[in-house]
């Protein structure tokens, strides 16, 4: 057992943090909110040049073949710098999905261009039914000629405005998990997109499929076999958002400590008051626990363990804890933090968005409760103790 990061990972983390701090000014970040693409293409290209767009892909596709923990460290740094990027849509969702389930032709066509930063791709999973379960998927995929026709509405699609293709999840049969994934070029007739107004820096879209036709080779994986891949995608997304939340919490704490050390009231820096000590210690406590749980989730998913339990725990914890950290940060800042031109507001908004993405705290607690009912051994964890003899 070694639940610390190694020297290479430490170096990656430091590089990513330095980059994220320098990449964009707060004004530039704010200016992107609500814009069509929501990220700066030049900054994304620089990130790709540093190898981050391809980090997790095998070398044959131009990647570096790192694990998910490395990706989590990058995402944490981007969260800390509040740098918007298409890393979720393109790498965490579409890229890794294609690596898992794509045909050789699909992989060859997209992965090298994703790794180099050329191609933006995304996935369309969730629907107005809300929730992230297979039962909520109403979008219909019907056989038509040599391929399929898609009809339905998708929500929370990341970076649809910039994507060259959208991988869409739809229903191909009556059983709950009779679901199929199709790659749809963005310019296909009948596909309409509309930007959603939402908190945080991500560009989220509504995507309507109105008699959209695709060829048979658009299928990712097998017809009717999509759900296990989507479940994995959602877990990876949740683990990465946990790491991003940690970055958001770290930035909030850093701003708060700096303020508490320099802001003088009653002839003393406010950071010398015990009430402030206790608030800051609790922020730090929640942050450190969150960080370890987030790293654990990313490492578990990356190491080929099931990783579901670890991810549920991480996202449930970070979604609540980091939102609380940002609220406490505002408590200590007082009115100044309430102003839009003070950087704390960026993190307050991003915490709202990141806590909601890929399942909020309640969603993941429900998943844990299901595990508690159905698989107690798994719920207690791999390294759990044997129950003491007198209670067995």
């Amino acid at each position, binding site marked *: *057992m*070694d639940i610390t990061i190694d020297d290479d*990972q430490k170096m990656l983390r430091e590089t990513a943090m330095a980059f994220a701090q320098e990449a964009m000014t707060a004004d530039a970040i704010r200016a992107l909110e609500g814009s069509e693409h929501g990220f700066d293409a030049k900054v994304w290209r620089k990130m790709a040049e540093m190898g981050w767009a391809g980090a997790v892909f095998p070398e044959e596709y131009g990647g570096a073949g790192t694990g998910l923990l490395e990706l989590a460290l990058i995402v944490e740094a981007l969260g800390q710098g509040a740098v918007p990027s298409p890393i979720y849509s393109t790498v965490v969702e579409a890229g890794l999905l294609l690596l898992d389930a794509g045909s050789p032709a699909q992989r060859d066509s997209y992965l090298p261009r994703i790794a180099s930063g050329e191609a933006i791709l995304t996935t369309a999973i969730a629907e107005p039914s809300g929730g992230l379960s297979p039962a909520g998927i109403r979008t219909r995929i019907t056989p038509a000629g040599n391929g399929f026709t898609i009809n339905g509405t998708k929500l929370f699609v990341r970076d649809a405005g910039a994507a060259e293709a959208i991988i869409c999840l739809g229903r191909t049969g009556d059983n709950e998990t009779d679901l199929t994934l199709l790659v749809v070029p963005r310019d296909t007739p009948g596909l309409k997109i509309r930007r959603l107004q939402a908190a945080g820096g991500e560009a989220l879209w509504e995507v309507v499929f109105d008699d959209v036709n695709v060829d048979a080779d658009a299928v990712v994986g097998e017809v009717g076999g999509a759900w296990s891949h989507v479940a994995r995608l959602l877990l990876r997304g949740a683990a990465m958002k946990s790491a991003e939340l940690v970055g958001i919490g770290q930035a909030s704490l850093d701003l708060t400590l700096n303020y508490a050390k320099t802001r003088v009231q009653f002839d003393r*820096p406010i950071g010398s008051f015990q009430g402030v*000590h206790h608030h800051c210690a609790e922020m730090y406590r929640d942050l450190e626990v969150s960080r*370890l749980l987030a790293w654990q989730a990313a490492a578990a998913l990356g190491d080929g363990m099931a990783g579901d339990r670890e991810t549920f725990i991480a996202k449930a914890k970070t979604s609540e804890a980091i939102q609380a950290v940002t609220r406490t940060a505002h408590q200590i800042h007082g009115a100044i933090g309430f102003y839009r031109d003070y950087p704390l507001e960026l993190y307050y908004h991003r915490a709202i968005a990141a806590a909601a993405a890929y399942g909020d705290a309640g969603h993941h607690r429900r998943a844990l409760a299901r595990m508690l009912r159905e698989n107690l051994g798994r719920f*207690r964890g*791999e390294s759990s103790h044997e129950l*003491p003899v007198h209670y067995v």
Partner: protein
Amino acid sequence: MDLKFTAEEAAFRDEVRAFLRREITPAVWEAHRDLAEQGMWTAEFTKAFRRKLGAAGYIGMGWPKEYGGGGRSRVYQAIFWDEMEYHRAPGLDRAITYIPNALMALGSEAQKAEFLPRIIRGELSWFVGYSEPEAGSDLANVKVRAVEDGDHFVVTGQKAFSSDAHMADYGWVLTRSDSASSKHRGLSMFIIDMKSPGITITKYPTLAGWTHHAVHFDQVRVPRSMLVGEVHQGWKTVMGAIDFERAALSSPGLVSYQFDRLLAWCTKEREGGRLIDDPLVQDELVRLAIEAEGAKVMSYWLACLHAKGLRPQHETSLALLVKRETARRLDVSGLELLGPFAPLRHGSPWAPLEGEVEVEYRDHLYFQFAAGGFDITRNVVATRGLGLPR
């Protein structure tokens, strides 16, 4: 990052488990619980069990080989602590975790030679004499005096809140040796043989049901060779030693045990159904499991940092805070989940889980103030860890 125990670590864990399940059976617990000291093992059993730990090689396994230790990494020590706490085994106290580490770092060669071999065999019990009626969280406020007299120091005064002083062979005692110096300067640390003439112990019952002690020193003569570190430099000795205490106390075994015990209670079939089928109970158990996982990961993370040769400090305080706060949450939820059975104590035929939950709800109250306590720990983390001004 490698989340799994290595094959060797897992084998060690299994060996420790087998040892503890063999030694700490329900019958042993019934035979050796001290009914006058509710919820506690008898002093005799604690001492005998410590010798067994010594004979099995568990006490010095993390010590350097030069002191007769096993030189194993802190991960092994963490596994051992975890399992010991989980099985409620006695003897995992300052005599094993704190004093030997402090001695190795701060003691004279003669002191190491005299005490370490006896400690590693599990022969010695200790009390730590820091607290006094006027010196608790403000530790430098000690008033017990040590006056130089040739080859000896003469110690007079009273220590308070002295855990396990009744069974201690030695005291690790902080004294004021120079009353003219400022608060932190005139302190000296001594090892005091508890059989020395002039020592008396007073008992104070606690609301947890067991007794705590005050130790009175009346002109107790302590040889100069039992001075730890330099004269008047006792504050440095205390600060150097205190992190060892917190590292051991942050073990997650207690929290895991509390959680598993509650789970067992909630899955029991009884008339009216199982608690675990209630959605509110499921939500509470899930929330507790999340907190318990945090405490566990944090504790093993510390062990891994130590194993890498790093020396975490405020992180150690933080881990202790997380563990103890989680334990308190489990205490509170435990009482609630027991419902009308909550107040029933051991000895009542209807007491659930042998009355342990109710005992711990009272006993763990000391987590809120002992060895720093919650609010003092937050101050330590804020000033030493986060650099906030005092």
